[in-house]
């Protein structure tokens, strides 16, 4: 509860002013799109869809706004709280500032899933986790079923439940966290996502969600959060929040879909710095990096918004735009523009059956194009050090931009088992100092890897002093995989999941580093295959057959001077004998054996002579 308040208060101020309190109604639905132009001709679009259903209705299988398919999975797997993230690209915090939602609605590259499961034992939790991942895998067309024991960890410090869990104790609630850094998020994940919405993609802001645009974004994150919310004095509700954040490149998005190739524009359309002395018709110092702040909704998303979803809460404005009030914005008829008190945002109230369109003309006043991005609490960048196939190191650069506030956070890594870290080499030092500073790391939780069974889990509670940069480094050794453990097709290496940084003070804020690519020693699979298989075949067929025939001594059974009548006589005798024995029946077998023994006795005689 306290945390929820915290979240609402500390998420950036515009949102706080816009969002109604989370515990507004017991069973309601609302959706909102927030557009925020960012520097370098980027545009952040945050889609948020939230629906509540009371726990009693949920348990009675009475779904209204809550998607039934997901609800059944959650019930089956005993999930109390679920967080699922699909992310692609990088958030450029240098240019774009603090992350939307305080970083709480995003994951590292790929797919991330964490959930609180109700189970009596660890084994039961693992079993339920398996059920959950497999079911979600089917629902979202993602390889979530590959989150096995080696990719699952149980964080102890990093994640705290967001919802209000009243009726459970800590003992029977298990937090499991799994991550698939290599998973490529694409349109097949968006379609099931849209199906969870009450209006699907047919009306409201969801009509703007187009796979082509979403996956051409510089950064995008799809999040699903399910948590119980218990307002004071009210009935507990289960809240599902679907969030899509994307940063679109305005320049790229404005290209027509049938001609997406960024051909050079005609020379006369090129925006030039005419103040340069050499400027002429064929020489142009470009200034286009500052331009492209004029756009329309249909240019960016390829279509206009088709009215509003009839199920949505009419008190929440469906679209908000965060530009300074001084900037003029045009909109289509039947839309009511409301400027907010903070002077940097405005919202639009749209009638249900009106096509919505806004137009931002090129700004006249250069200084008032954008709302200045907020500085994030911490910058983090992680990279590999060293080279070669045997060992390496990881270096995370953590920079605190604040001049006076210390940042305390938990740094969590879940590493694959084939990266064996040397914990004793882990050290943190402040830039400019050559010796490591022991006071930076306050607490370490480390769960070592077990080969082929479990990955490394490392959680470090540490601090970064104001206006300083801390280098957190550790070394690791690369294991050699069995050759069947390599992926069967061409691969660029093994992805290492993003590190999760959860800031505890001065405010709650989450961020993730980029993922890493760990290249393990890879044998040239085709070469031994060709050599071994081909030579073995050649030897087995040609040499083996030939050698066998050449070396073996063949002794003909009929060798010797048996020619003429005697042979004929013997054959006739044999035939008759066979006929006689057929009548006699079982006596035959014993005699056969006798004959064989006789032969075996004969052969050694021959062998002795050689």
């Amino acid at each position, binding site marked *: 509860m306290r945390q929820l308040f915290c979240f609402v208060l500390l998420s950036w101020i515009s949102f706080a002013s816009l969002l109604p309190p989370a515990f507004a109604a017991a069973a309601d639905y609302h959706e909102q799109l927030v557009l925020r132009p960012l520097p370098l001709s980027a545009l952040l679009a945050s889609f948020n869809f939230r629906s509540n259903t009371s726990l009693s209705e949920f348990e009675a299988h009475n779904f209204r706004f809550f998607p039934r398919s997901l609800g059944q999975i959650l019930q089956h797997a005993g999930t109390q709280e679920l967080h699922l993230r699909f992310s692609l690209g990088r958030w450029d915090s240098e240019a774009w500032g603090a992350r939307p939602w305080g970083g709480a609605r995003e994951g590292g590259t790929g797919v991330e899933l964490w959930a609180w499961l109700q189970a009596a034992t660890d084994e039961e939790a693992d079993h339920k986790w398996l059920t959950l991942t497999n079911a979600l895998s089917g629902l979202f067309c993602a390889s979530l079923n590959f989150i096995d024991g080696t990719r699952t960890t149980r964080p102890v410090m990093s994640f705290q439940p967001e919802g209000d869990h009243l009726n459970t104790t800590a003992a029977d609630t298990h937090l499991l966290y799994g991550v698939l850094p290599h998973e490529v998020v694409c349109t097949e994940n968006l379609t099931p996502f849209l199906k969870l919405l009450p209006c699907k993609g047919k009306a409201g802001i969801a009509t703007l969600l187009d796979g082509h645009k979403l*996956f051409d974004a510089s950064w995008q994150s799809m999040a699903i959060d399910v948590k119980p919310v218990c307002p004071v004095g009210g009935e507990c509700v289960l809240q599902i929040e679907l969030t899509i954040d994307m940063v679109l490149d305005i320049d790229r998005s404005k290209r027509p879909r049938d001609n997406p190739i960024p051909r050079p524009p*005609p020379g006369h359309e090129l925006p*030039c710095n005419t103040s340069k002395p*050499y400027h002429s018709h064929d020489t142009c110092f470009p200034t286009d990096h500052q331009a492209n702040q004029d756009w329309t909704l249909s240019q960016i998303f390829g279509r206009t918004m088709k009215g509003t979803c009839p199920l949505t809460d009419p008190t929440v404005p469906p679209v908000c735009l965060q530009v300074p009030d001084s900037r003029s914005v045009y909109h289509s008829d039947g839309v009511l523009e409301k400027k907010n008190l903070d002077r940097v945002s405005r919202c639009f109230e749209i009638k249900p059956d009106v096509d919505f369109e806004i137009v931002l003309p090129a700004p006249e006043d250069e200084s008032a194009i954008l709302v200045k991005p907020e500085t994030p609490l911490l910058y983090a960048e992680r990279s590999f050090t060293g080279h070669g196939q045997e060992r390496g190191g990881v270096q995370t650069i953590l920079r605190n931009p604040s001049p006076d506030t210390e940042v305390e956070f938990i740094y969590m890594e879940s590493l694959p088992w084939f990266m064996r870290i040397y914990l004793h080499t882990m050290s943190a030092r402040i830039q400019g100092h050559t010796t490591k500073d022991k006071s930076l790391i306050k607490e370490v939780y480390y769960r070592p890897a077990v080969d082929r069974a479990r990955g490394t889990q490392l959680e470090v509670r540490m601090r970064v002093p104001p206006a300083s940069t801390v280098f957190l480094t550790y070394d690791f050794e690369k294991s050699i995989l069995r050759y069947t453990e390599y992926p069967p097709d061409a691969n*660029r290496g093994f992805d290492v999941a993003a590190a999760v940084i959860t800031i505890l003070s001065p405010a709650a804020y989450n961020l993730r580093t980029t993922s890493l690519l760990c290249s393990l020693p890879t044998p040239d699979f085709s070469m031994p295959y060709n050599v071994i298989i081909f030579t073995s075949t050649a030897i087995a067929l*040609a040499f083996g057959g030939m050698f066998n*025939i050449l070396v073996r001594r063949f002794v003909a059974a009929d060798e010797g001077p048996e020619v003429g009548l005697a042979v004929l006589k013997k054959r006739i005798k044999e035939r008759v004998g066979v006929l006689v024995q057929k009548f006699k029946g079982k006596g035959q077998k014993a005699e056969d054996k006798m004959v064989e023994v006789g032969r075996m006795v004969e052969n050694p005689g021959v062998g002795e*002579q*050689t």
Partner: protein
Amino acid sequence: MPPNITTTLNTARARTYVFRLPLFTRVVIIAIVGFWIAGLQSVVDVREWGALIPDEMGITTLYRMNTFPFIHLNVLHAVMNIFALTPLMERFEGEYGTLNCLALFFGPLTTIPALLYVGVEKFVFGGNVAVMGASMWVFLLLAVEAIKTYKVNPRFVIGTYSIPTWTTPIGLLFAMAVLVPSSSFLGHAAGLVVGYGAGLGYVKFLAPPEKILRWIEGKLNLLGRLPHYVSIDQKTYGRFGVLPSANGASAASPGVSLGLVGSTQRLASALALRRDPRILKIPPYLSLLCILVGAVWLFLLPLNEYSRRTYISENALLPGQVHTYFGGSDQNVFRAYKKEVNELVGKGNVEINDKLESIVKALGLKTARQNFTYSAAGRTFAGENLYAILQAPRGDATEAIVLVAAWENVRHEVNRNGVPLVLTLARYFKRWSLWSKDIIILLSPDSIAGPQAWVDAYHDAHDSSKVASLPIKSGALQGAIAIDYVQEQRFKSVHIVYDGVNGQLPNLDLINSVVNIAGGQMGMGVALQEMWHHNDKYPDRLRTMLRGMLKQGLGLASGPHSSFIPYHVDAVTLQPFGEGWQDEMAMGRVVEGTFRSLNNLLEHLHQSFFFYLLMHRERFVSIGTYLPSAMLVAANFTIMAIFLWMKSGQPDAPAESTDKTPTPTVERDLFLPLAVVTLSGSLSAIPLYIFNHVPESALTPLFLLFLIINTLLPIAISLLSTHLFPSSPPTLQQYHLIKSFSLLLLGMFLSSLATLNFSLAMLIGMLSAPLSFVGPSSSLVSRIAGFALLNFTSPPAVLLASAAVWGLNVGDVLREAAVAWHVTGTYSAVVVWCVWWPAWLAGCVCVLGRTEDKGGKVKEA
């Protein structure tokens, strides 16, 4: 001892087996060999004369039906067939008798398959494929044997399948048809069919009547007259009637006991051969042969037969498969950037970086700078790298490709077009969203130190006192392209510079991609190794290859790309040259196409394409083909070292060579040889240190001083060793041991170096080849001649001579070497001073060795 017994038995058995081969088999083998030898000359085409050619068959050419089994395509064919045929034929002859064999194999068993083959080939298939070789007989006999086996042992079981034994030759037939090129399936099949017939007894009626044969045999007394003749009568006993194994075994067992004391037995004779003084005459010739073959081998490589056409091994690259769109109004931008760059020429490094950074930052790239300071040869190489990261729009920062433009190229010319081109390309690349890898733009102040500092720091392999760490980084580097575009007028072709530090090379696929894109897609020429005109004939190919080898051997950095290669990042530098009609935009499109190819890479380039010699843009030699030449040259030293070791163990007087008892090994006096070799090895640290740590101005005088000392040093050591122990001056044996140890070390180092830097090993190997052949001598003239020869091939003399040949100043050469040692970590100096020079020094000491009193010494011993 047991292994010895078995080997004795086996050799004895093999020997007796060969000696016991019956007559007809021998004749057949001799005939096959004879026909092969006859086929070596080119006057009469024996193969054409004797082969079984369906269309040539007529009354007068019926002889072909009998001659074709004796004639073979080549040696391999003949040898294979002899090996296959001998045991089968021997068995058959042992069973049926020589005369029978003669009659059958010159009669039905050859003509029937031949007729069968001709009939089927000509009338069924309508073909005219000539066949030759005894393999038809092999299959025939195999079929006969298989039928015999079948009668005893009808089937064998593999798993749950039971297979009739008579089918094995059929399996073999198919295996041969698949595995052996140009084998005649039909010919073999014809043999097989007749063989089966013979085995089942259907061709028995064709055999000559036994009575007549017996009569002939008796009348002519063949058994008595012909050696190894197998009588017809023997067949009644089978071939086991004359088993010689009892004989062989009894002969072999005394052989073991006698072998060790040097009897006439086989092993013993081999042992005796080892002691034979004549065998010790071979190694010098052998090692000379090694050197000659190694050298000739190298010159054969440019021929079509030994080199291969290049090909793209990594199919994911897809070079030249995309449209390139760089051009149009980008040229306007390029012109503006070029104006900006031209204004910066002559300004300070930081000022240049300030301006360039403002341009790059305006494009929306992340920029950072890095300081570095190297000092070498009394100079300081300091500067500031500027780099920018274009983050792949949808990427995950796990991989990156690098585009390098150094402000100055290796010849210190300002990269007037390269830098603006890279800036324009960065702006152009930013518009695309298809990048799967980040693109890093590196603008370094110079071509060697700057990129080296940057790459070292990127991989955290830098010395932080000289080179600053990188503030921002991206993912694993997958490739790098450097642009060295100084030329102002329009260009014709692109010159690809690919030599890395220490002779390491980028993956050939990268070069092939550039060749494919520039040469194929853009229609511009591609040159390698400064061969501005290349007609793809032998001399030009050889020249390209030798230039490449020389550069590889020197191991110096040849451009901004060189520093990347040791980190397994494939990189090349592209230099436009010549006068043509290609403009900057065409160059940009080449880079665009190459980057699109690299962008396609799913995995790091990893094919075994890192060891090659390029001789034309589309011809190369792979390591398997060229490596033996350097290995042979290195092997010559090892051979000589072993030879000298053995020689040092022998008494000097070969007078009593008539005595058959082996002479005991002489005790070797190891102290002095080991001391000399150790001393020369440890002395090598001195020139290595001096030439790498002395200021530039002192290099030339020091070198001249060293040249004099270098000449005097062997004399001094020689005199010292003689006068330090006046009672016992060094003996011939000790000189041999000095030489043996130093050559052993040299051979060992060079053969391992050949796998790392083939060209360096080859160069050093050829230059130190005289060391194998000069040695102590009793005559003063030969000593002086040998010493003079060695002085002409000494490391400093070679350095001086090569500097003179290329018109360089020795001081500059030494300075470059020192810079390379400190900045790029080139190890060529280590090889020269610590591998070659000690071996040379030890060789000189040996040459100066006085051995006139050796006779007296030996007698004392």
